[in-house]
């Protein structure tokens, strides 16, 4: 029913999508699989009218269409759920649903809308309260609202951009059930993902993209995970990084009864205590938004705690400014990579040495910077961390997500830190970059650093962590050993089911 023919789209310096053709049949779940930067999202943004293709054409039911805006796409029966939700927090679900639709009118009458939302919710198993204000919803519920918004418009094509990235396992299952029901109702779904397990569960057909090119379109039944992985990265995957056991040493990072507020002044971290020893990785599992950000920022010194203490190497640093903490050997890989970890318009080199004034890893006088020293050192870091960049003077924003993260890793880990806080360090990264992150974090562990890993992806935690604690609603709800047999248990604890964990 939908055909995209020879679509190409370039951004300055990159061919994001290069003559890709894509056919969507009615009533199928068609996965776009690929590493980050492969062009999946760009291709779908073209279909949804956010970008306009440089060349190529789009046909719906055999007719040529030009899609000039998301509004226009909706008129053609195409809807898309972006990775970042677009709900107005103070509006109700019903109001959000009709937002931007003509029928809203001057005086919105939401009674009819609410009935329709309930109907749709019942039909597809996407239950939400149409009267609830959007800010009160959980992430999973918000996503349901985004999907309902699209179904409400009567769309026959639904695009989901990495929908499971923010979900816990049982929410993912619920989403997949809903998708199956939509299929039965002849709705087509484009599912963007790079998680092979899920792709194999839900798809009918799979198109693999790599570096803007369509590698192949295959039937799910006719393929395997390994084959897909190979198509995706163009080489065999390193399936398992061997976990090295390191003799743990003294207590390096210690947090006692920490209580922290979020930006709105609500309690985000509620009485958390833990210790990380030298050579140990403590994983904190949790769905995003359960206090991880505030916890990490507080330990690093960007957020003042209301209560509690933070120690590094036995020294109380609760009131120490960031600069001092950096000098004491604390490193932080923030989850908000582009918003916090780097300055997009500064060069790779400037980003690599943004903390040099404190660490003096290349000695440099404040009144006369050591230019040659810094550029020699940055060339070495670019090489050591295999950062792909035209030059170390390139602006950081032109790098891909994986390479930006490598810049962050290079800065944070090259100074031989005593303790490392890694918040969602692989989020949004492709498999190759992920491997790199795992490898470097494990190297830190070998060197005797205490690593605090905050993550939502259980595979990642199982692979890296020596112990896993679960955070929910700002509290540590329990510990579990990083073992695949604990997957369901940890998942339940992450979703707030009480009494699921061992107290430790």
């Amino acid at each position, binding site marked *: 029913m939908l055909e995209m023919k020879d679509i190409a789209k370039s951004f300055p310096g990159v061919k994001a999508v290069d003559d890709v053709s894509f056919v969507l049949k009615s009533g199928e779940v068609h996965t776009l699989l690929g590493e980050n930067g492969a062009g999946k999202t760009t291709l779908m943004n073209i279909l949804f009218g956010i970008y306009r293709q440089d060349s190529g054409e789009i046909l719906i039911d055999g007719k040529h269409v030009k899609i000039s805006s998301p509004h226009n796409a909706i008129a053609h029966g195409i809807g898309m759920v972006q990775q970042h939700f677009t709900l107005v927090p103070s509006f109700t679900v019903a109001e959000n649903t009709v937002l931007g639709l003509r029928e809203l009118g001057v005086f919105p009458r939401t009674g009819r809308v609410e009935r329709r939302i309930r109907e749709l919710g019942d039909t597809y198993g996407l239950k939400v309260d149409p009267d609830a204000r959007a800010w009160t919803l959980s992430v999973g519920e918000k996503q349901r609202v985004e999907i309902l918004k699209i179904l409400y418009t009567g769309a026959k094509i639904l695009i989901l951009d990495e929908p499971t990235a923010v979900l816990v396992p049982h929410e993912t299952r619920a989403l997949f059930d809903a998708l199956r029901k939509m299929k039965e109702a002849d709705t087509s779904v484009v599912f963007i993902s790079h998680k092979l397990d899920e792709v194999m569960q839900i798809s009918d057909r799979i198109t693999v993209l790599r570096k803007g090119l369509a590698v192949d379109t295959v039937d799910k039944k006719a393929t395997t995970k390994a084959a897909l992985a190979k198509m995706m990265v163009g080489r065999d995957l390193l399936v398992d990084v061997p976990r090295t056991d390191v003799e743990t040493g003294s207590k390096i990072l210690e947090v006692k009864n920490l209580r922290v507020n979020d930006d709105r002044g609500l309690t985000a971290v509620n009485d958390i205590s833990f210790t990380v020893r030298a050579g140990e990785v403590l994983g904190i599992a949790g769905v995003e938004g359960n206090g991880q950000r505030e916890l990490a920022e507080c330990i690093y010194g*960007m957020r003042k705690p209301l209560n509690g203490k933070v120690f590094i190497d036995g020294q109380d640093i609760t009131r120490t400014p960031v600069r001092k903490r950096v000098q004491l050997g604390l490193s932080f890989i923030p989850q908000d990579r582009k918003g*916090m970890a780097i300055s997009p318009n500064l060069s790779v080199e400037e980003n690599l040495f943004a*903390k040099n004034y404190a660490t003096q890893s290349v000695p440099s006088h404040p009144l006369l910077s050591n230019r040659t020293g810094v550029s020699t050192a940055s060339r070495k870091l670019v090489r050591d961390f295999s950062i792909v960049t035209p030059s170390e003077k390139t602006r950081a924003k032109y790098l891909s997500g994986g390479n930006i993260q490598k810049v962050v890793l290079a800065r944070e880990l090259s100074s031989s830190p005593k303790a490392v806080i890694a918040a969602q360090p692989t989020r949004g990264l492709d498999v190759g970059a992920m491997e790199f992150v795992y490898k470097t974090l494990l190297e830190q562990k070998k060197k005797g650093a205490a690593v605090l890993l905050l993550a939502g992806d259980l595979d990642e935690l199982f692979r890296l962590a020596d112990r896993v604690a679960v955070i929910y609603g700002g509290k540590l709800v329990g510990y579990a050993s990083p073992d695949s047999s604990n997957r369901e248990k940890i998942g339940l604890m992450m979703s707030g089911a009480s009494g699921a964990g061992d107290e430790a």
Partner: protein
Amino acid sequence: MPVLSILFALFVMGIFLTVFFMEPGRGIRFALSRTLEAYGEMLSWPFGNLYGFYETLNKMIPLAFVGLGLCIAYRMRIWNIGGEGQLYMGAFAATWGALFLFNDLQSPLLMACLVISMGAVFGAIWGLIPAVMKAFAKTDEIVVTLMLNYVAIFWVDYLVYGRWRDPAGFGFPLTAEYPAAARLPRIFDGNVQIGLVFVVVLAVFLEYVYRRTSWGQKSALIGDNIQAAIYAGVNIKLFTILALLASGAIAGAGGAVQMMGAQHRLQPGFSPGYGYTAIIIAWLGKLNPIGVVVVAILFGGLLVGNEQLQMFYRVPIALVYVFQGLVLFSLLGGEAISRYRIRFHKRGDE
């Protein structure tokens, strides 16, 4: 792009001027040729004639001073709109020093140091007020600096119309002239005030600060991504305060230099909006010190050229302001448009 913008402004202004030059009984050709002639004069005097160029340089000095000061703040995304007020406070403090505090001093060097420092200190105070309010109470610096402009301007008005009015000034709102020791020497056979040297030295110094010092790197970090700066451990409050302090001090010093080097007395409205024009200059110079000086020369020339229009072509001051407005408007508009890509579609091609 800037060239196109200026051409656009000249074109639109040409329409105004042609209308202005139209006389009954004479054709439009006459008006057009007068317009072209006026444009020729407007460009050739400030840039094509040595004495005209000296005037351009003199006009450029206060513009460049304030512009350089503003750069310091703008590079950190602190929106100091208070250049005008800081300039006035500098001029006020300089006059206070030259006429009342140190008027017995005989040494021109000592006098210059003291008076310029006074100007810098008072300009800095005018920057410190919004800085402290921003750093500790999160007030908006745009509003505070803008309002402080009026305080400074009216404060100077109060003084020159009242307490400081020169008894020998025939009732004009002027202070007495500065003593000889409080006048700065002039260069180029006395045609240009020495402030030019200060501006160039200052620009080179700031260029060095931005390129080679830790201050420059941190301010770039703050300006590009304040979250990243906090994350890198930069003390934002301290930098906010220092930036506005330095910004105000430079504008204040500019006011003092303008008094000592050119005007030699305080009078109301001594600045035809230098502090506001400097905002545009700072941006057009891409917040780059050397760039600011270059753009300031162009704007100085514009001011001089406009005076020519007024003097020799009897163009009313209102039209001169229209022209300045057009130039700013088209330069800013050009900047904005150049960020978009314009594409044409065939009809029905949607």
